[in-house]
């Protein structure tokens, strides 16, 4: 059985989207809903659960504001706080390594692996490792990396990528998991949750003990105490970070918070926003390395400092990866996480990915939203996602990106010209109205018209005059209520 796990881990086809392929995938996937099993229902359930929990806490909004302010301070003072964090954790035996990009981070990791003669790796959940495409790199190095987070384990077995930042296998039902275990691990089929958990446990437990190196992410890096905080529900992070003799923690530069006094508000928010729990089952605070063991912290920039350059967008770095915006997003629920083409899906992906991989590649992402604002409403650190989406749309048409086109620019220039000349506006709108009335006689609808009528009837303008004309004729006939207003004082 164990060999099946090894086999799958080794041959996992890691999807790496680059350049033109990335764009093609985005164009194809964002515009059309896909079939992702239970994804839509599960995400919606999480969203509603989260809303119910929040409704029971009168001071939730004040927590959000506090968290926002703490992150605001932290991101504005990254230079000081990262150095403070490094100094404090190094004093207790850890080694801190900085990496400008994913490649440098992978080089650090490979150096550690060679130095310690590592053969097998157990990996707790880390989104940064996805950015680094770490499994792929380790595989090339001849090292077996096993995902130990249950959801990550499942998508690794299935040869897929995570569909969600918190619940990577949200699209798989219990029956799907049963079939996956039957096929890949040779277990008898079951869809009992407890039985499935036992199967996963049986296959994973031994790996923790045998592994030479454990890799984890970091939820919060606390500067004043030099502490890494990790939260989880399954216990795999505790095992991954304590069983093997070497622990490598991967973090983005934005994970640092000033003081341990600031941690509680984030723990309150993260559990509730992520999974609707008051607190996650385990909260680990790692203060340094113990004798005989090694702790490395790799701090990755990978485009994050670029976000700091954009004063309207830097709050995207406040993200604590709770996934609440994904669950709330009606677009994400329909197109799924893979449609976003890179590591971070959903609304946060739509504002973060263009910074991290460049607008020239991910310029289409900010357009994958109806701007409904649900994400901004649920974000526990009050990132103004909806306004950042329009800001990035603006940047995407001004800077080199796949959505910048001179044709579209010309259309909007003409539109703006018409809208600044009332006579032209009325002519253009009159033509639009006539066009809409005639369109239903056309056998085929081109462009946006065709996109509309694919699933919708066109509006049917009434035969009478437009409002401008009506007003000229009838304004003097408008009637006033003859007596006192049936009114009520405001707020009564």
């Amino acid at each position, binding site marked *: 059985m164990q060999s099946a796990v090894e086999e799958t881990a080794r041959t996992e086809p890691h999807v790496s989207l680059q350049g033109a392929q990335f764009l093609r995938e985005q164009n194809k996937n964002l515009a059309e809903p896909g079939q992702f099993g239970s994804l839509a229902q599960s995400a919606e359930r999480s969203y509603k659960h989260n809303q119910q929990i929040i*409704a029971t806490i009168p001071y939730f909004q004040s927590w959000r504001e506090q968290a926002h302010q703490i992150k605001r301070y932290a991101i504005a003072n990254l230079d000081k706080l990262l150095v403070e964090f490094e100094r404090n954790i190094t004093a207790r035996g850890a080694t801190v390594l900085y990496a400008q990009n994913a490649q440098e981070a992978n080089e650090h990791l490979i150096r550690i692996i060679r130095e310690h003669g590592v053969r097998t790796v157990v990996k707790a959940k880390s989104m940064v490792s996805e950015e680094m495409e770490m499994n792929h790199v380790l595989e090339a190095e001849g090292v077996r990396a096993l995902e130990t987070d249950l959801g990550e384990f499942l998508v690794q077995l299935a040869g897929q990528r995570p569909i969600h930042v918190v619940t990577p296998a949200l699209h798989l039902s219990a029956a799907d998991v049963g079939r996956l275990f039957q096929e890949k691990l040779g277990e008898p089929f079951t869809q009992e949750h407890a039985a499935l958990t036992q199967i996963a446990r049986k296959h994973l437990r031994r790996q923790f003990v045998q592994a030479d190196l454990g890799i984890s992410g970091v939820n919060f890096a606390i500067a004043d105490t030099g502490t890494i905080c990790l939260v989880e529900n399954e216990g795999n992070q505790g095992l991954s970070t304590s069983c093997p003799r070497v622990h490598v923690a991967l973090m983005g530069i934005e994970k640092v918070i000033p003081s341990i006094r600031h941690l509680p508000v984030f723990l309150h928010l993260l559990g509730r926003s992520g999974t609707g729990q008051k607190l996650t089952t385990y909260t680990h605070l790692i203060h340094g390395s113990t004798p005989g063991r090694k702790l490395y912290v790799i701090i990755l920039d990978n485009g994050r400092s670029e976000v700091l350059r954009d004063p309207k967008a830097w709050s995207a770095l406040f993200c604590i990866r709770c996934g609440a915006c994904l669950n709330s997003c009606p677009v994400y629920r329909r197109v799924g996480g893979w449609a976003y083409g890179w590591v971070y899906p959903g609304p946060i992906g739509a504002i973060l990915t263009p910074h991290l991989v460049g607008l020239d590649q991910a310029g289409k992402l900010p357009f994958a939203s109806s701007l409904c604002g649900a994400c901004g409403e649920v974000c526990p650190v009050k990132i103004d996602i909806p306004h950042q989406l329009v800001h990035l749309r603006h940047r995407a048409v001004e800077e080199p990106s796949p959505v910048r086109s001179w044709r579209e620019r010309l259309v909007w220039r003409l539109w703006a010209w018409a809208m600044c000349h009332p006579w032209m506006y009325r002519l253009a709108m009159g033509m639009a109205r006539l066009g809409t009335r005639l369109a239903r006689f056309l056998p085929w609808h081109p462009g946006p018209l065709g996109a509309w009528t694919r699933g919708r009837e066109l509006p049917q303008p009434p035969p009478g005059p437009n409002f401008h004309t009506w007003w000229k004729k009838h304004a003097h006939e408008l009637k006033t209520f003859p007596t006192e207003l049936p009114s009520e004082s405001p707020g009564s």
Partner: protein
Amino acid sequence: MHLPDEPISNRPEEAVSSGKNSDSGVPEHGTEPGAGPVPATRREYPVYEPGEPVALFVPCYIDEFYPHVAQATAELLTWLQVPVEFPGRQTCCGQPAFNSGYWKEACKVVHHFCETFAPYRWIVTPSGSCAAMCRVFFGHVDPDPRIVEIGQRVFELTEFLVEVMGVTDVGARFPHKVTLHIGCHTRRELGVSAPPLRLLQHVEGLQYVELPNVEECCGFGGTFSVKMPGTSIAMGQTKAENIIRSGAEVVVSPDISCLMHVEGILRRHPQGRHIRCMHIAELLRAEQ
């Protein structure tokens, strides 16, 4: 939105000490479950003095495709003794270009809007989404305080009636089963979700039915509806199914743009084709 020129506190303690409720020992009790998130701030509304003229802003698609909505709005306001004026040079608020990223082009249109409406203290529009463009987003395309100030004068119709004028009963009668859809810009950018409901509660004979998943987007999203049509239609179908499930004969909204999309889908739905879509102004004019 945190703009770059805002000072950043150098003392995180200030931010933290501002709310002392974060101790885990505080018992959790409060609002009833299901009430949804509380808006972070409640807007303070200016006072409307009776007899002050109100400029009517009629969005482009209402002007040509739904002129009866604008008529109903003008009639309703006049009926409530509000002197209505209609600046003839008005065109668009600039939202289509703004949401598509073309802010330079949107800026020209915003300037035209501000020139046209500069003489008016009160500007009312029967579209929450256009009101949000004026009040929330004008400052994004041009931070000039004069532009922002004119944008601040724009109110959505139901918001103006209930929050500014204090009117909840307009003397309408509409004996039908009605459900309410509020556009996302109206609900989240303007924070207007109570006024339309309060107006409906005072309509004689009206039977209000709750819309399941009321806060979920209908999928219109302006150019989103034709740029990502598959996703937009899928979202609209969910909304249409929820409207059918509510059992309503009429779906009413302060945003006729959402209804243009939802109605288009309902017309193709075997169980939904008989459901009427109306702007709330039309309903409030019924049998007055």
